[in-house]
């Protein structure tokens, strides 16, 4: 993992925050491939279908002194697993709703997920509509204008990426990170830390601490 932890740099102004991100979208649009490109910078043509959900993490630096860690739940796309998905998006602060630009039905499914997120997920959730398989431009079925217009209408971020070539994948996650309520998260983390000390509880092991 290519993480730049706060402690490697100066003590003074380093900021670190972590966020939960969920991927949703129709089967075989490339959700797992996008995550693997982002986390491991790799791609394979023959990836098994995701069953249930997969968990991965990745850390990115969004500016000289700010690092964001994503805890990513990559969900299964098949209709049958739909009821499971709420478990994963429930506490998510960000969602990547993926469709396949060569597959018309996949945008409808993406719209369904966006509707569901707006109804059920936490209110401040940052949603990005992401068209995958940009490398198959000649087979495109969904025009960029159409999808972009839909995203604009609902005030969502919009990106087109290729998990296969890697094009725009990192940018997409970085853009999401920039939209996340960083200050709010940092102050929450600060409060929680103080409370932990006050109550003399054992510090949570799975919480990365900010070094400032």
């Amino acid at each position, binding site marked *: 993992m290519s993480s730049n932890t706060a402690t490697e740099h100066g003590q003074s102004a380093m900021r670190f925050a972590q966020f939960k991100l969920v991927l949703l979208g129709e089967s075989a649009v490339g959700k797992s491939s996008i995550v693997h490109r982002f986390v491991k910078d790799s791609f394979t043509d023959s990836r098994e279908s995701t069953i*249930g959900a997969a968990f991965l993490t990745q850390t990115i630096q969004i500016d000289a002194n700010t690092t964001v860690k994503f805890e990513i739940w990559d969900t299964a796309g098949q209709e049958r697993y739909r009821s499971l998905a709420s478990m994963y998006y429930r506490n998510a602060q960000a969602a990547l709703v993926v469709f396949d630009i060569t597959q018309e039905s996949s945008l409808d499914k993406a719209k369904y997920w966006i509707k569901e997120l707006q109804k059920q997920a936490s209110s401040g959730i940052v949603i990005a509509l992401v068209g995958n398989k940009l490398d198959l431009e000649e087979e495109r079925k969904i025009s960029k204008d159409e999808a972009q217009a839909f995203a604009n209408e609902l005030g969502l971020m919009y990106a087109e990426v290729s998990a296969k070539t890697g094009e725009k994948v990192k940018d997409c996650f970085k853009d999401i990170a920039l939209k996340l309520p960083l200050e709010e998260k940092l102050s929450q983390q600060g409060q929680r830390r103080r409370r932990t000390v006050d109550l003399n509880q054992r510090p949570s092991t799975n919480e990365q601490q900010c070094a400032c």
Partner: protein
Amino acid sequence: MSQVNDFIFGTEGYQSLQHRPSLLRTLTGLRKSPMDNSHLTVDSQKVIGASYSHLDLGASDTQKRNSSPDSRSVHSNGSTKSPRPSLNLSKAKKLYDLSTKIDDDADWNDDIDDLATPSPQDPKPQFYPDISDLKLQESPMDRSTASMEPPLETQQLSEAQPAQFLRSDYERIMKDPFVILERTSNQSKYSKIVKALKNQPFDMAELRKQTWSGVPAALRPLVWQVLLGYLPVNSATRESVLRRKRKEYTNSMTQLFRAEKDQAVWHQISIDIPRTNPTIKLYSFESTQRSLEKVLYLWAVRHPASGYVQGINDLATPFYQIFLSAYLCDHVDMEAFNTNQLPQELINCIEADTYWCLTKVLDTIQDNYIHEQPGIIRQVSELRDLVKRDEPYLAEHFEHEGIDFIQFSFRWMNCMLMRELRMELIVRMWDTYLSSYPTGFNQFHVYVCCAFLRRFSEQLLEMDFQDIIMFLQDTSKTSDWTEADVEMMLSEAFVWQSLYENATAHFRT
């Protein structure tokens, strides 16, 4: 072994296990079939443990039992036997009954009547229509997803000499898989299973007992079909029954592909086929993919309550490759075998056998795949209870870290651990599951999952949320496993199941 006795029968055996969770792992004596250990049985007929509770049934009238639609009785057995209330079972049961009413069970019943009196009208030599031309055309929609897929191996070898890879007696095996016994009966390692297959009258309980600890590869295609009650042991009716089942399959297939395609089901299957067992070359060949596609599509259409659900594709593959292996010469590397070179007639047989046997297994776990997947929810909850009792420290640690069992064990139930272990190990595991049919896949499996998890307790206790989830979903942790590891896991699961059944029986009285 006396330790084991104490565990099972001693009054404080269960208590002591709670505090010494790792002790069982040292019981290497359990490697052999627990069924060989007479002290595990209460009397000579009944064996402790849910997976064997049906054994006494098997002895009486095997033929009838084999052909009966077990699924409904299994289901109700499962729910009444369980000492804990099962989740949402009444709803599941309703859906389940609905689905069994409209699925293949009727076909099995039909065959019961036909078993004794083979129909004279059966056309003998040409026993099924040629379905080679029934290759479904991909819709344009399907094609666009193909770009995500690895290149399909379409290369056909010249039809010159099929003898190079097919056994010289393959046509005879096709008609009657018992021909396999001719080449194995002289070898001692096969003798007990062969004897059980040849017993007159046939005793299913004996065959189950002899196959629990594994089936030699050469006998597997035959034994699996017998254990599932698909292949009749009765030599008088065997060939005609097999012929009819295969004909029925091909007829259904012909009808199915004349009708309008269910696009949603077809689309889901067609995008999953290219990513089924992607690391095994056998599954990259076009013929393999077309066969699995047909099998899955027929099953899905005939079981509308569940339809095709991802994971069912995984479950079809052990049958496909084991049944294929029956016809290949010993020197052929089956996992890399190019199926494009197989004669169509043989392909049809393998497909039909795969279809019927997959159906038999899915009958016992269909509520894993219906709406909201109540079977899986129940199994995950059973696993959670088992771990709480058997490995309390681990359960506590998971709770502290905020781990929900469904986060890691959903896949274990949905795919029967097929994503966690290599194919050769799955095949070995299925010997035992099938020998415990019909409860192997829906009851015993939960104990196996518990044993699987316990294998990693010590490591897991040192990890936090993130590491636990990533470790449990990482399949490389079993990459150095051998059959011995699987057998240890199965034996442990058996002991726990026996213990559990014993303990709850004790509470009941």
